[in-house]
């Protein structure tokens, strides 16, 4: 008699679990299908145009080989993107960390006002300033063929505003550590790199990743600043140019293989740094 209710509970839990898992599988399939589709299409060699089936009839590496051929700009685009993303990742990380540390540790006049202004400015989409920025960059000769320099400048210049998560993390590192180090004889900069930096490893990795990802996948700014000059494109803009009406039949499968190559560095980075990334995202809110 005593067992019956527990059996009922078990059964209802099993049904709940099964239904839950079915739902999760459906969602996963919907989510992952486009990726599988792109990967499969990138190996399709019977023609380069868009087709209505998923599994290729002929398999091969032709699309990838094309990307590295002399008459294709892909390597140039990839290189552009990589340089921009790398430089931005380094500079933006330095800017964000210093900004976050300053706002977390120092108390100065108008600190709150500054933070509020940045919060409000951050609510506007970045591309609202695009027209003005283009004019400024054009005056500095940093558009079209020099788009890489222009893009780096644009991304890095506003990067300090993304200090929130990082500041949240620094706020959880006890101030008494800074004070102890000050009494022990450390300068502010020594405290920053000898005490705070080693403790902030997760948030540094988080910052590097997000700083890298921004320019890596950016389209709007990159397209506008390159302004129709293919040598100034990044991969997103370059690949997009293959999807125009007159190009799509020639380049559809190239687009797919390009997409796969774009994803590789990011996936690799995430696989290695996933642990820190999660710590970084949650660390700011919970504890250091």
């Amino acid at each position, binding site marked *: 008699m005593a067992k019956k209710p527990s059996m009922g509970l078990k059964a209802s839990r099993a049904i709940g679990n099964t239904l839950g898992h079915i739902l999760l599988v459906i969602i996963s399939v919907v989510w992952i299908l486009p990726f599988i589709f792109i990967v499969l299409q990138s190996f399709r060699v019977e023609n380069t145009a868009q087709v209505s089936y998923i599994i290729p009839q002929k398999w091969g590496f032709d699309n990838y080989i094309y990307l590295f051929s002399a008459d294709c700009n892909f390597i140039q685009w990839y290189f552009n993107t990589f340089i921009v993303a790398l430089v931005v990742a380094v500079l933006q990380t330095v800017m964000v960390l210093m900004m976050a540390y300053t706002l977390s540790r120092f108390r100065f006049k108008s600190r709150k006002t500054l933070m509020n202004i940045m919060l409000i400015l951050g609510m506007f989409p970045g591309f609202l300033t695009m027209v003005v920025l283009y004019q400024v960059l054009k005056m500095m000769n940093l558009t079209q063929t020099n788009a890489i320099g222009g893009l780096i400048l644009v991304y890095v210049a506003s990067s300090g505003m993304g200090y929130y998560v990082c500041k949240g993390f620094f706020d959880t590192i*006890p101030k008494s*550590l800074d*004070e*102890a180090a*000050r*009494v022990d*004889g*450390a300068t502010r900069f020594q405290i920053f790199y000898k005490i705070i930096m080693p403790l902030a490893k997760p948030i540094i990795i988080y910052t590097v990743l997000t700083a890298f990802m921004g320019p890596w996948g950016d389209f709007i700014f990159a397209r506008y600043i390159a302004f129709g000059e293919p040598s100034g494109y990044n991969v997103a803009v370059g690949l997009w140019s293959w999807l125009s009406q007159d190009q799509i039949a020639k380049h559809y499968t190239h687009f797919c293989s390009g997409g796969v190559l774009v994803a590789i560095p990011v996936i690799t980075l995430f696989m290695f740094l996933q642990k820190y990334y999660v710590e970084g995202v949650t660390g700011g809110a919970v504890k250091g």
Partner: protein
Amino acid sequence: MATVKLTNVKKIYDGNVVAVHEFNLDIADKEFVVFVGPSGCGKSTTLRMVAGLEDISEGTVEIDGVVVNDLQPRDRGVSMVFQNYALYPHLTVYENMAFPLRLLKGDKKMSNDEIYERVTWAAKVLGITQYLTRKPKALSGGQRQRVAIGRAMVRDSKVFLMDEPLSNLDAKLRNQMRAEIILLRKKINTTFIYVTHDQTEAMTLGDRIVIMKDGFIMQVGTPTEVFDKPDNLFVAEFIGAPKMNTFKCNLVKDGDKYSVTPFGATIPVDGEKGELLAKKGIPSQEIILGVRPEHVAIAKQAGPGTIKTTILVNEMMGFEYHLHVLTEDETELIVRIPTLNLTEAERAELVTGKPLYITFEGKAMHFFDVNNETNLLYHKDAE
């Protein structure tokens, strides 16, 4: 030599909140001074001003005769131990203790061998040699605090600052570490400023105690002075546990003889205290009378010099009873009675609701002014 001199030191936050008022203190070389007081009395703020972690709003702090107001903490020659240990979590115990030595520059720069020697010496003194390769998170609270002390010890600092170093430890460990600090002091023999809210720590550690309240110094004195001759009612109640019983009554002068009239009783002020009252010519007046719980005695029988009370609570502490008793006008007093001298029958009488007659002698009495709460006999201005 490392003297510390604070002259008219003031701390004002946000332009109007005064945390420390006109703090004046001369600390002698190798003296152990304890700042004690309730939360928010300004004791930690004052210490942090000496350390250089807080700006000094007004006045000067001198270390060894040099005004240090505008010097960075690292240039003041001070070491500090924090309440929460403030160990660097990513460094081993050895590296934590070597940290201040590795930052030394110029003539003071140390080789790795010298650093090793200093750190192992400190570790040996503190008994933490076996933990040198561990990270702080693998240590217990007491061990962490030892590392924090070790980190402060390795440098040849002029002044050793300790900000509530034992507050995060459990009671047993606190007692043990307190004794160790007394021993440590003998070994490193430097000037100490120690902040605590615990009057027991203050009494046991300090050569002199600075008792603070709301940013003001209430009294500076040796443990004996502040216990026997509290300058005012606050000090009297703050020092000593359980706290001193204080209540209003009349001080009656009859020729050269004095008596007090607490709760309807008449108790003569005999001995030295009576003579001092007469010498100062203090007239009859209403006063606040203070008597420490350990100086209250149980009277065998009722008489003119006894106060009738009823036992409210009897706290058995092991070696003594803390009796909370109520007088006839509902004033609560505390009486400390050692258990050793009581018979079984007498102990059986000490239960809630039973009547108890108490009394005290003249030498146990402290007399405070009703208006300004200063000690009628020992307040500085009264002398």
